[in-house]
C-alpha cells in the first residue's frame, strides 16, 4: 500500500517538474536571459583561449580607436579591449554565485529556525537582522573589507553574510505559512525531531520561493561585486574584470573621448545583470509569486 502511494506520488512530482520545465522553456524572458548567461559562462571558461589577443598583454598601441585588428579599440595600457571583455566574465561569475550560495544557505537555515520555533529565537534574530539591514551593503562591505583586508574570499563572505538575513526573511515568511499545514503537525505527532521536520518536511515545500530569491540575489551580488570592484575593494588587478576595466579607464572620459575603453565593459555588465533578472522574472512567474 505504502509503496503504491510512494510511486504515485513520485510520478506526480515528476509530472510537476516536467510542467515547470516546459513552462520555463516557453517563457521568452526566461529563455532570452538563460541564453545570454550561457554565453557569458562559456566566455568565462574559454574566454582566455578564444580571445584574439592576450587579454593581459600590454604590447599594443595605446588608446587606439576601433579597427579590424582591435574591434573594441585598446586601453591606456595598450591592452586589447575586445579580448578583455571576452575574458572579463570569469571573476565576477565565480565571486557573485559563491556569495549568493553562502547567503542562500545561511538565510535558509536562519529562516527555517526562526519561522519554525518563533518565540524568543525569532525575536532575538529579527532584532539583529534589523540592525544589519539598517546599513547599506556597500558601507558594511567597505568597512569590513578595510578591517579584514581585501581578498576574494572576504568579498564572498561579506556579501554572503549580509545577504543571509535578507534571504532569511523570505524563507521565514514561507515557513510561517507552511507550519500551519497538516503534514507538519502529522510529522511532529509521529515524533520526528525538529531538524527533521524543518529540513526534510518543510524545506522541499518552500524551495520555490528560495529558487526565485536565489536568482534575485545573484543579480544583487553581481551589482555589489561590480560596485566594490569599481571602488577598489573587489576583484584585484591585473584581472580583465569588467568593473576593473571601467575603474582603470573612466578618468580618461573627461580628458578626451576614449569612450570605447569603458562602453564595452559597461555593456557587458548590463547584459549580464539584465539577463539574470530576466531569468529571475521568468522563474517568479512560473513559481507563481
Amino acid at each position, binding site marked *: 500500500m505504502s509503496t503504491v502511494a510512494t510511486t504515485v506520488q513520485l510520478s506526480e512530482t515528476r509530472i510537476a517538474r516536467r510542467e515547470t520545465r516546459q513552462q520555463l522553456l516557453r517563457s521568452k524572458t526566461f529563455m532570452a536571459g538563460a541564453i545570454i548567461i550561457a554565453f557569458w559562462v562559456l566566455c568565462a571558461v574559454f574566454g582566455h583561449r578564444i580571445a584574439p589577443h592576450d587579454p593581459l598583454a600590454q604590447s599594443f598601441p595605446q588608446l587606439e580607436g576601433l579597427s579590424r585588428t582591435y574591434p573594441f579599440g585598446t586601453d591606456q595600457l595598450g591592452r586589447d579591449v575586445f579580448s578583455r571583455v571576452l575574458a572579463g566574465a570569469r571573476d565576477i561569475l565565480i565571486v557573485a554565485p559563491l556569495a549568493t550560495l553562502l547567503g542562500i544557505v545561511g538565510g535558509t537555515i536562519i529562516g527555517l529556525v526562526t519561522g519554525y520555533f518563533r518565540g524568543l529565537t525569532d525575536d532575538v534574530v529579527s532584532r539583529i537582522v534589523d540592525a544589519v539591514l*539598517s546599513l547599506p*551593503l556597500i558601507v558594511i562591505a567597505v568597512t569590513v573589507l578595510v578591517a579584514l583586508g581585501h581578498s576574494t574570499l572576504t568579498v564572498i563572505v561579506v556579501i554572503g553574510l549580509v545577504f543571509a538575513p535578507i534571504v532569511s526573511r523570505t524563507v521565514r515568511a514561507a515557513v510561517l505559512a507552511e507550519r500551519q499545514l497538516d503534514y507538519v503537525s502529522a510529522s511532529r505527532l509521529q515524533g520526528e525531531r525538529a531538524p527533521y521536520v524543518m529540513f526534510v518536511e518543510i524545506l522541499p515545500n518552500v524551495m520555490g520561493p528560495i529558487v526565485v530569491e536565489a536568482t534575485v540575489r545573484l543579480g544583487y551580488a553581481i551589482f555589489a561585486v561590480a560596485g566594490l570592484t569599481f*571602488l577598489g575593494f573587489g576583484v584585484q588587478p591585473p584581472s580583465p574584470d569588467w568593473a576593473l576595466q571601467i575603474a582603470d579607464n573612466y578618468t580618461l572620459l573627461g580628458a578626451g573621448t576614449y569612450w570605447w575603453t569603458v562602453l564595452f565593459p559597461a555593456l557587458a555588465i548590463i547584459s549580464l545583470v539584465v539577463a539574470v533578472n530576466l531569468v529571475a522574472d521568468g522563474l517568479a512567474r512560473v513559481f507563481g509569486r
Partner: protein
Amino acid sequence: MLSVLVFAASQLLPGNIGRNVLGPFASTNDVNALNHQLGVDRPILVQYVDWIGKLVHGNLGMSLEYKVPVVSLLGPSLINSLKLAAVAFVLVVPLSIVGGVFAALRRGRLPDRVITLSGLSLTAVPEFISALVLILIFGLLLNWLPVTAAAPADADLVTQIRYLLLPSLALVMVLFGYIARMARAGTIEALDADYTRTAYLKGLDTTTVIRRHVLRNSLLPTIAVIATQMGYLIGGLVVIEKLFNYNGIGQRIYTAALNKDFTMLQSGVLVVGIVYLSATLIADILYSLLNPRIRYAGVE
C-alpha cells in the same frame, strides 16, 4: 544597537592604531604614547562608554588622518550628500509613482510591459554603469550637461542643480524600478478592491474614482518602500560620489576606509545609519498620518 554594531566593526581594524598613524619607522615609545593619548590602550568596554558619552554631546572625536574634529569634515560632506540625494529624490518620487500608476491602469498591455521590464532592468544595473552611460550620452555625445558634480564655488542654485543632474539621474535609474513596481502593485490591488467597484457603481466618474479611492489606498505601501530605499540611496552615494569626484559623505567614508582613519569611518557609518533610521521614522509617521486606520487606532 546600531552604535554597538558600528563600534564593533571598527574594533575589527587590524593591529595597532598608533602604528598605523605614525608609520613603520616610529619608535615603540612614540607609538605607545599616541595610543595612550588616543585612549585606545584601554579596555574595549571603557572605550565604548567613552565614545557613546561624547557622541550624545555631538563630539565625534578627531580625524586621525586630518587632525581636525570629525564633525567639521563630516558636516559639510553630509550637506553636499543631502543636496544630491534631494535632487534624486525630487526626480524619482513623482516619476516612478506616475510610471507605476500608469502601468497599473494599462495592466497587461504594451505600456505596462515596457515600464515594468525597463524598470526591472534599470534597477539591476549597477549605478556606476548607468552613470557612465549617462555621462557618455548627455555629457560627451550631446554635450548638454557637465560631467562633474561639484559646481563652481559661487554658483547659484540653478547651476548647482544642473551639475547635480547627471549623478542624481544615475540614482534615479536604480530607484525607479523599485518604487514604480510598488506603486503598480498597490494600484492594481486597489483597482481590484470592492470599494473601487462600489465607487464606480454609485456613478462616480473614472477620474474621481482613481483620485479619491484608488490612489489614496495604493500609495501607502509605496511610501514605505521609498523609506527603505533611503538606505540604498546612501550606499549608492559612495559609488556615485567617487565616480563624479563629489565631496559627500560617501566619498568621506571611502577615503576614511582607504586611509584607515578609524574615527572618521566610525562616525561616517554611524551618521549613515542615523539618517536611514530617521528616514524610516519619518515614513512611519507619514504613513500613520495618511492612513486613518492607524491614526484612529492610536486614539482609541
